[in-house]
């Protein structure tokens, strides 16, 4: 790296570009992360931080790895052209949603991520029903089937802890698309898409059951897998796995969530 392109800084390591984005960089610090998030939309999205490598992270840590802090970086927004059918799809959606109003493409779609050959549209939650209807009804889009709703809990992503992920399938055009909608933990509400895709009924109930995301407008949002009076939402990261120690030949094996982990 030549010196003239390098911005002046106190800590050269923190400003070196490879230290900013590489998720394989195990020695990144907080300083790197601030820069990574400030670098714009295309920078990887930080969804959390991993501490240590394995074994205890404090107290009896003898490895020296306990203090290691690694950012968890997800692929950031992609730049046009996206490739494949993705450009045509996003352009059509842009036309279908229009350019003005609350549900205009620019305000409805927060981020377009093309990663590993899959297209993900991050949708602002208020705009989800309109986007869903456009995706289903526009002849050039025609996503007839919502194959499922999956939840993901990112406790480290402040203000966007709970994600609902919709996988759409268009049999007409033989295309796939992923919608991702996020909600903060203390206001876990996302509009329901059951009106557009009745198939999402049980999937949304499952996501409510497992993550506690309230799908507003769902005809009967009740628990589906857990008993009706179950406390908590089991798939959230703060919900323990549970389990009891198992004895075998005089030794005790702790439950899986208390064993040494390599994360």
């Amino acid at each position, binding site marked *: 790296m030549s010196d003239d392109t390098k911005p002046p800084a106190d800590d050269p390591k923190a400003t070196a570009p490879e230290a900013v984005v590489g998720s394989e960089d195990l020695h990144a610090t907080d300083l790197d992360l601030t820069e990574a998030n400030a670098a714009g939309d295309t920078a990887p999205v930080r969804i959390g931080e991993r501490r240590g490598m394995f074994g205890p992270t404090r107290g009896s840590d003898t490895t020296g790895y306990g203090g290691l802090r690694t950012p*968890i970086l997800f692929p950031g927004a992609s730049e046009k052209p996206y490739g494949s059918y993705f450009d045509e799809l996003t352009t059509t959606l842009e036309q279908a949603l229009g350019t003005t109003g609350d549900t205009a493409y620019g305000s409805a779609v927060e981020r377009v991520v093309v*990663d590993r050959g899959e297209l993900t549209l991050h949708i602002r939650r208020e705009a989800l029903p309109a986007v869903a209807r456009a995706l289903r009804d526009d002849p050039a889009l025609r996503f007839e*089937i919502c*194959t*499922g709703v999956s939840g993901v809990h990112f406790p480290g992503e402040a203000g966007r802890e709970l994600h609902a992920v919709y996988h759409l399938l268009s049999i007409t055009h033989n295309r796939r698309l*992923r919608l991702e909608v996020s909600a903060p933990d203390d206001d876990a509400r996302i509009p329901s898409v059951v009106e557009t*895709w009745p198939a999402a009924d*049980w999937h949304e109930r499952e996501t409510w059951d497992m993550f506690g995301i309230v799908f507003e407008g769902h005809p009967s949002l009740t628990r*589906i897998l857990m008993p009706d009076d179950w406390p908590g939402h089991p*798939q959230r990261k703060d919900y323990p796995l549970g389990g009891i120690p198992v004895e075998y030949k005089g030794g005790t094996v702790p439950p899986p969530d208390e064993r040494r982990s390599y994360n």
Partner: protein
Amino acid sequence: MTTHDDTIYEEIPADEQSPGLDPALGDGQGDPYATTDADREDGARVFNASGGDWGDLVDEATALHEERIVVNMGPQHPSTHGVLRLILELDGETVTEARAGIGYLHTGIEKNMEFRSWVQGVTFCTRMDYLTPMFQEATYCLGIERLLGIEDQIPERASIIRVLMMELTRINSHLVCLGTGGMELGATTVMTVGFRERERILRIFEAVTGLRMNNAYIRPGGVAQDLPHGCLDQINDTVPQLRAGLRELELLLNENPILKGRTKEVGYLDLAGCMALGITGPILRSAGLPHDLRKSQPYCGYETYDFEVITRTGADAYDRIRIRLDEMYESLKIVEQCVERLKKVHGPVMVEDKKIAWPAQLSVGSDGQGNSLDHIREIMGTSMESLIHHFKLVTEGFRVPAGQAYVPIESPKGELGCHVVSDGGTRPYRAHFRDPSFNNLQAVAALSEGGQVADVIVAVASIDPVMGGVDR
């Protein structure tokens, strides 16, 4: 360290005991879990059918002169295809409302997978839909491979073996569907023929993977191990036997007047209904749409195999039976093509990358499948580095770059997909399975409302739900 002596079972005070333990509750006739009139706010009479003379119960119920009856069928009922609970509102013999209650077999597999390494996840997801273990393994591993970016490094032989095993599993699953479906109609011969033929396939699975079910055979990067010696001959011998068995099933079912009377125009769901409810698989194809992911979005090299997508237009339970029968013949065609290819294609069955490929090897000894002595000799006696490598990969596992992937495949029941999310660690951050049975069970109301009670059984059997997959 704890010993057995340390285990203390506390005496539970009477007022904290589970209500089920209190004989004063319940119906007072020795069934603490029975529903009572006190559970009902509107004061409707509740009947619990648990043994005794059925005629007495019917007499008692008819004496009320109440036409509208809510019947709770399941979760323990021999004809509900596992622990499915059906809540039926009846007007005489007609079903006016049907609801499915699920969750009785929820085992938290997805949560458990988040606490195991990526490779260990295979042994968990194989247990979801226990009739299609290979398919869960395949979609999970294809997802991981996409995250790892090694999709094009999977050896050809591994892909062929995957296709071979998946197609055998498809026949296996369809045979159980027809067999248990037949049994639910009271036709036990269909069941005995179906399970007899399935046994032939399970014998192949046992020879290849060491297990009849829950195989954990398809692994990230390939398959657990190559086919054993003589396996291709075994498959070659089995295929004609299966053909003969399928022919027997066809002769038994296709023109059987009782079966046709029970299944024709029963459980009707047209294309618009399928689309709205997100139905895939044989139910969708019985409505006439030739949608099959093996053709439309091929994976594992399915585009290079010669087979037909079977469709019919009756959109009823009968056509779904016929589609499953015909699909098994198509699967046999693919199996034969796989055998031909496997005779020519040799080489590894796992990716080259030693940071991903499972280091342990298995071999067949006199007492069955077990550790490869050669491998153990190497890591324990010859190479310290091999031991370290083995230890690291088996205990810690490999890291998968952060991101998410969804690679759906065509399972016997429809679209099966795994939404895998990685945070760059050695464990799945989230693995959500889109199980076709879970989605398709939503159609119970559409399939059975307005029909007879007996048709509910047929309609549910034509969905072919497996509760292990539905509840996960």
